[in-house]
């Protein structure tokens, strides 16, 4: 068990904060929008080429 980490492996408090904020504020929201958008596009393309406009019931 080594208590001393090398410089490159050192995780700083600031680094973790930055990463955390980046993930919650930018990355995941963007990914979510892309996911929903992609889902919408794929349904649209399916409607155009295969299943036709949305039906009823």
């Amino acid at each position: 068990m080594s208590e001393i980490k090398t410089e490159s492996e050192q995780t700083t408090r600031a680094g973790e904060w930055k990463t955390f904020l980046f993930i919650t504020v930018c990355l995941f929201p963007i990914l979510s929008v892309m996911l929903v958008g992609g889902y919408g596009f794929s349904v649209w393309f399916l409607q155009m080429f295969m299943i036709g406009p949305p039906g009823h019931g």
Partner: protein
Amino acid sequence: MIKLIKCFWRIVSKPSVHLSFGLLTMGGFLAGVIFWGGFNTVLEATNTEEFCISCHEMSDNVYVELQETVHWQNRSGVRATCPDCHVPHNWTDKIARKMQASKEVWSAVFGNIDTREKFLAKRGELAQHEWDRFTANNSLECKNCHNYNSMDFSIMSERAQVQMKMAAERDQSCIDCHKGIAHELPENMGSGEGTLAKLEEMATSGYNKGQSYYSVRQLPLFTDNTLTTEAGQLNAATKVTILAVEGDAVQVEIDAWRKTKGFGRVMFEDFAMNVNDGFLTKEVAQSDDYMSKGESKVDDLTGLPWQKVEVKLWMRNSSLTESRDTLWTFAKTTYDSSCSVCHTQPAENHFDTNTWPGMFNGMLSFVNLDGDTQALVLKYLQKHSSDFSDEAH
């Protein structure tokens, strides 16, 4: 850059050293709440009329046209906004429609329909997209407000009753008949409505006993002169002979044939010819009080027994004309204009009387004719078919 991503991955892939478990969970949870709220707010915002008409393609064309219609202003003070009719309410379909709007954004950016002329030239295509959609979902967005089960047929006009009851029975898609009610129709697609109203004006007023007349449209029949109990329906351009005139009501005789298989509800103009004269309710068709029966013959081609009947019923003292000529002229114009939009229409005498209904009904979904006009045009085609034409074909 690669170093940055590597550094990012190193932090992300390991348990945090400095930030507590609670903080991370709480932070992620809060961010999720805020994101979801924001996402829905944006979805809602793009689902408002203000958003729709923020591009002039919409606000200068379809939005202005809507303001002339009952969906904009009416005695009940309820109105439909753009997304009520044009955005699916089901989540998946809604998201798909939102993505589809990328096409509209593209058009707006490149100005594909930035003038009235360009819009008018494209209207037919654009309208067809919406009609296809409404046809596929059985007019779901209409039915979100208008429900067959909630319709009180008794307070509709007689004419509306006839059509709406038939539609309700089949849960018909509203758009089948009601095209062009919220925006103008594409050019060359005016419905027969206006012209038929003129025909209605041409209908003779004051009918002489003993004389024969023709119905200008589909008309309700009644069992007695109070015109309360429905007895059936007279088809358009059908010959009736006036037996009695009593105030608002006339008693008429319909000379018809019917097939005696089943209830014999449908009346035909002639033996073995499927030229519709109208139909009777089950009660009337099975009762001897309203008709005298004549000879019976079997049609060799179909093996069906036919029976001649003289039906005596009451109807409203209106909407009859002395000759079928004006009706035929109107029907011919409609046939020529509506059917030539897509193809060269066949000559009337290209088919025989019993072939026309199948041909005609197969094409109906491509044109915009109201029920009365449909009935009239079909009858015109049948009465000018090869059976009635001297020209050999």
